[in-house]
């Protein structure tokens, strides 16, 4: 403000003297109050027509500490699995992001997110430039610049570019999300939380996925009201293991009731004997609770499902209000 008062004074003086004002070139040092050393690690690969960017950023030291978790996650996604560490908390998707993860750390939390990006020519450089500008780094101008920050690797048959940038940024610490999964659960030993890498599109939470074995998974979702009712969902689930009309009608008749802590649940057990291998059995649970319905599904090869059925039912029974 001092500069300004002085400048106005000069203006008046010049006005009176009738001369042109001529301000000098100023050189000064500024303090950036919010800037800190930050690191960004990201993986970019193509998925069909569009591209996928998985990015983790935050204070340099913290990101370095979690770098391996990110690499493992990227590898799992590339393998179409998407298993992530139990310490990560998945948040809801937005228009631009398929998923956000909140990663807590004693030195302040960081975030990791998965976004769909357009893949027009030069998209790799464009994204790097965008990230670089947030870290007070110059844009990529030559191939040498690009090689310095991006490393190409092959993961499960995909070309994945790992980008690593270190600069000064004003990133904000993510706030701890309110639990997007509103129920309290006890995760059985061996279940791993999972991001639906098969379906790389914005994923609606509240929902949870677990990888029980590489081939068997648990999927949980919630719909308002009765979610379409039993018949509709039996038909839908039947479709997932290619089960047809008559068998479904029979299965619908064999619905049993499971007493869970949240109320009575309906359990449907579907099996397609024509499928010899792979996913041929599905156990679906409808659990009405407070005006909406939870859908819990365990699906996989029949013997694996059988092996984990008790575990699954215990999980359903012990779900509690959050």
């Amino acid at each position, binding site marked *: *403000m*001092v*500069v*300004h*008062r002085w400048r*106005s*004074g000069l*203006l*008046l003086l010049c006005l009176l003297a009738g001369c042109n*004002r*001529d*301000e*000098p*070139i*100023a*050189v*000064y*040092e*500024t*303090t*950036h*109050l*919010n*800037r*800190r*050393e930050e690191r960004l690690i990201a993986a970019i690969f193509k998925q069909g027509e569009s591209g996928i960017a998985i990015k983790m950023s935050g204070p340099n030291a913290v990101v370095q500490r979690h770098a391996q978790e990110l690499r493992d996650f990227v590898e799992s996604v590339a393998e179409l699995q998407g298993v992530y560490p139990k310490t990560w908390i998945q948040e809801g998707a*937005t*228009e*631009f992001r398929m998923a956000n993860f909140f990663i807590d750390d004693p030195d302040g939390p960081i975030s990791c997110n998965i976004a769909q990006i357009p893949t027009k020519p030069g998209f790799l450089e464009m994204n790097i*430039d965008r990230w670089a*500008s947030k870290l*007070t780094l*110059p*844009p990529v101008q030559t191939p040498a610049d690009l090689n310095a920050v991006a490393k190409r690797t092959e993961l499960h048959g995909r070309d994945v570019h790992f980008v690593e940038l270190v600069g*000064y940024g*004003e990133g*904000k610490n993510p706030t701890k999300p309110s639990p997007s999964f509103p129920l309290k659960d006890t995760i059985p030993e061996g279940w791993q939380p999972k991001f639906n890498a098969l379906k790389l599109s914005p994923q609606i939470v509240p929902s949870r996925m677990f990888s029980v074995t590489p081939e068997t998974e648990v999927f949980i979702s919630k719909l308002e009201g009765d979610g379409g009712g039993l018949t509709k969902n039996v038909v839908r689930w039947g479709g997932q293991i290619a089960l047809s009309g008559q068998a479904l009608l029979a299965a619908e008749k064999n619905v049993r009731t499971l007493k869970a802590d949240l109320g009575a649940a309906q359990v449907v057990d579907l099996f397609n004997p024509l499928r010899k291998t792979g996913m041929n059995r599905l156990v679906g649970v409808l659990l009405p609770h407070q005006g909406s319905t939870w859908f819990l599904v365990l699906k996989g090869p029949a013997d694996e499902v059988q092996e984990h059925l008790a575990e699954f039912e215990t999980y359903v029974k012990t779900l509690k209000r959050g």
Partner: protein
Amino acid sequence: MISRMDQTAIQSGPPKETHFTATAPERSATTWSKAWQETWLYKVLRVLASLRLTVVLFALSFLLVYWGTLAQVDFGINTVMDRYFRSFVVKIPLKFIVSAPWADEEKWPLLNQIRLPYPGGWLLGSLLMTNLFSAHIIRFKRHWTQAGIWMIHTGIAIMMIGEFFTGMYASEGQMSILEGKSANFLQHHHATEFVFIETLSAEKDRVIVVPQSKLRTGSTIQSSELPCDVTVDLYAVNAKLMTLKNTERGWATAGMNRNQKLEVLPEGSGVDSSSKIDFPAAQIILSRDGKELGRYLFWSVLENPDWITIDGKKYQIALRFQRTVCDYVIHLDKFTHKKHPHSEKAFDFRSEIRLEDRKVEGGKERGDHREAAIYMNHPMRYNGETFYQSSTIPDGDTGRSIGTVLQVVRNPAWTFPYWSCTIAGLGMLFHFWLNLSRFIKRSA
């Protein structure tokens, strides 16, 4: 006044020249005053003190204010203020004079192109002031019954002087702060600057500023303080960038706007029609020892700077709105944006801030700390500056408010209107009370 009214009668034809016979008070004809009345100064003042001149000046001001209002259909308030009210002469387009502010340039070219010169605010203001002072020297009685008039006129004079000082000395800027973050600089939307920024550390930058007054089309700025020479090929007060079509070749040879071209827009009509801010742009050639380093296109709207490496040092380069670094830091603890229930109407904007004064005085920081809530109609005043709740920073994805924009005003004359209206208001009360009591006495 009432007594004068009684002398008047309805008459046909123009009224007689009365401003001295009817209104000049009778003075005792001492030799001193006679001698005074002989001087040329008195004669000049007598002309200047004319009440008819007052009326004419009022009429001129009336029209200026009216046209200055209409002009805001086309121009932003700052442009209008500078051209109409804070100027000596203003050229007014015919369309405002005929009260047709919506007349299109294409349909009514003449209404837009013909501009008539007219006295601006400062000229009328100073004439009115002269008129007022002369009248008080020459004409007004120094008698207690006239105290009301004296007070009213003193008040008005203070108000006009205050407006003059405000126009000359007041400065305002915006401070944008995200919730949980701090800020220590103001941005001024009425001026730009061209900067080289060298990053020194996470906290420190070295900034080299070329002020807007040097950025004239065709000028070359050379200085030992600059890392290179700056030649301004074109400076546009208001412009926008357009992406080049396939066949077009751009002017710029370097930087991120290589595939853009600059389109100059008329001043004041702004890209953003609601706020009507000008967005300057410039075509700038950077060179070193006569060797061209690159031709760059800059636009004040863009957030990300260009980069250039000179002598192994990396600089960010940008044309940006003028910034002032403050000697205090404001930290935004919490920002609230409440709406009325089931409505989009804002009910409360509130910034809860902490101010930390880091001005170094006598070798150590002043170290004042202050916590305050700034909200609508509740500004914070600190050390000659006033902080107002101005607007919010919406989140790009969700539209939720994630930060505040404070308007920071320094106006050394801010108390003038308060003095002025107190004095003038009391004067009016006194004067009207005096006349009313006379009127009632007469009627009784």
